[in-house]
């Protein structure tokens, strides 16, 4: 069962949302239930703190009449529970900010401005969320969670090419298919995150599944995107044996 939480400061809209979502759940026969609806973000946080492991869908208004807005609320939720999907509801003027989508890894945005569309939008979004939960449960192990500042990123292992220690001693650079980012950590802790990660050099941990080729002579690993990584003598011997298995 997936729990649905709603936070909306306007009582009338809150009521309306509850009705729509209830109708969607019943009509589409979704495996969901509204467990909590509130006008106060703090109440919602208190409530989520107790159920950290559950699958949750959070429908949040961005502008709340509180010292906390929906974005900050979403970050708090993301930090405390790892299986959460955030759906923001927002008025037209706030929508310039698809940026937020990235900042908190929002699942979707729904516009308040078109009340007639709400039912259709919710039924699509909730169905999609249910599908996504199902997929994630099937291969949940192959994701790693990394904290960058206050936001927690959950990253698919197969998108990671390699980790590199930065020239600044406490930072690690993660190289992905679609970019790279830094976080504070130690390289020696990474090998334990997933069995695909292998420390091939003092300053590199590679994803074994993403190596394209190994040049034993110059001890250079070429990754799937063409980037190259050094490896030690010992590692190159280990890898030349191992790589035939992948």
């Amino acid at each position: 069962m997936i729990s649905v939480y709603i936070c909306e400061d306007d009582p009338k809209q809150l009521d309306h949302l509850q009705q729509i979502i209830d109708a969607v759940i019943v009509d589409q026969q979704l495996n969901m239930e509204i467990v909590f609806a509130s006008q106060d973000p703090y109440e919602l946080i208190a409530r989520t703190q107790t159920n950290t492991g559950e699958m949750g869908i959070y429908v949040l208004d961005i502008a709340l009449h509180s010292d906390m807005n929906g974005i900050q609320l979403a970050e708090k939720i993301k930090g405390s529970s790892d299986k959460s999907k955030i759906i923001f509801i927002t008025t037209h003027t706030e929508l310039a900010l698809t940026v937020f989508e990235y900042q908190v890894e929002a699942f979707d945005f729904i516009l308040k401005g078109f009340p007639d569309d709400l039912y259709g939008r919710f039924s699509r979004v909730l169905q999609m969320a249910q599908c996504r939960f199902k997929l994630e449960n099937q291969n949940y192990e192959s994701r790693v969670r990394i904290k960058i500042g206050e936001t927690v990123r959950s990253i698919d292992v197969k998108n990671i090419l390699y980790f590199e220690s930065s020239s600044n001693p406490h930072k690690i650079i993660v190289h992905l298919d679609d970019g790279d980012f830094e976080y504070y950590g130690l390289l020696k802790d990474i090998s334990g995150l997933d069995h695909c990660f292998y420390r091939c050099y003092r300053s590199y941990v590679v994803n074994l599944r993403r190596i394209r080729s190994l040049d034993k002579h110059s001890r250079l690993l070429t990754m799937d995107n063409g980037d190259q990584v050094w490896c030690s003598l010992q590692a190159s011997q280990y890898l030349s044996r191992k790589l035939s298995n992948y």
Partner: protein
Amino acid sequence: MNIVIIQEFFFFLLIKALLRDLTKIRIFDLAFLLITAGSTYGLSTSNVYCISLLVLIAFIFFSWWQIRNIECAMSVTLAIFIWSAVVDHISTLFVQITKLPNGYFTVFVVLQTISLILLSVISVRTDLEVVFENNNLNIIAAVLLLIIYLYIIFNEGWKNNFRMIFGNLIILLAMVALILVLCSAYLKSVKVQYEIQQKDIQIRNDERYMNEIEAHYNELRRFRHEYQNVMISIREYLKTDDLKGLQKYYKQNIEPVADKVFKEQYILEDLSRIKVKFIKSILFSKLNYALTLGIKVHFDLKDLFNEISVNELDLAMVLGIILDNAIEASTDHNNGEIVSAIFIEKNSTTFLVQNTVFEQLPPLWKLKELNYSTKGENRGIGLNNLSIIVNRNENMILETRVRDSTFLQRVTVKRT
């Protein structure tokens, strides 16, 4: 004569240290060293003045070979020679006082080694320039140093009595001190000049910012005026129960305005929440520039941004590079868009800039290579420099993503 060759060896090392070249030994260096030492040895019987001058010219040539600027080469070489003369005087005095056999040799080598170590540590740890940027100053320095040096060798010769050496040593030390004081004063004035320049830029930005606010205020007044008029008209329509007319009026006069209000870009309100001057200044000038180029610009900041716990200049540079790249990528495209935001969180502040990408980008590691640019060679300051600045700040971390048709960079600054 061995002493002279030892001295030459130290000249060689000190000059290399001063030019930050100590770790690299080339064949040229060795050949130079051998030839100089050999010819000094061969000429050992001739006139001492002659030898001193020849050695000086040889070493000036050596420095010139490295930096290819005769004034700088002269200053560098002469500075080292004069310093060596100081050390030589101290060593001679030491021998005359203690009367130790071989004392000169030991003291000279020890002192020169210490100065070599100090010099190389200083030149590795700091990025101080050894010569002036202004070439006129270099010429003056070279000439002055040359006069001092010529005075030393012609006035003294090689053998002297105690009082003479002592007196000269005092004069030399006084000169070295004087030169150091002058240099530091010069450095200070250059720094002040730079700061003034920065302030100037900021003031100019602030001025533009104020003008922009004024313009917006005037627009707001006009809008209020229009609003009152609209209200009066609506009241008239309602009074006369003319619903048809009201509908027509709404379609013609209110709807377009409402549309315009939505589409209008207001970045100023959120910019006003930045209380860190440097950051406000750079964001305003870059975003405003983007607006004038016809790029759609969003900026979002909902909380007050009061302080930042990182070198402000570095952060401003980082944001400058990121925004410049975003602007460059969006120019000349009809629907270019830049979305930027600052998020204030409990323990950190995040800066986010996102722009539309119109061309197929090569993989990121290629973009980060030195001097790489999608717009041809030697264009602007690339992602490589960005990494360098971020790396030297422990508190700053960078994220770069290319997703579908957007390029996104996020700088997170940890609060301490």
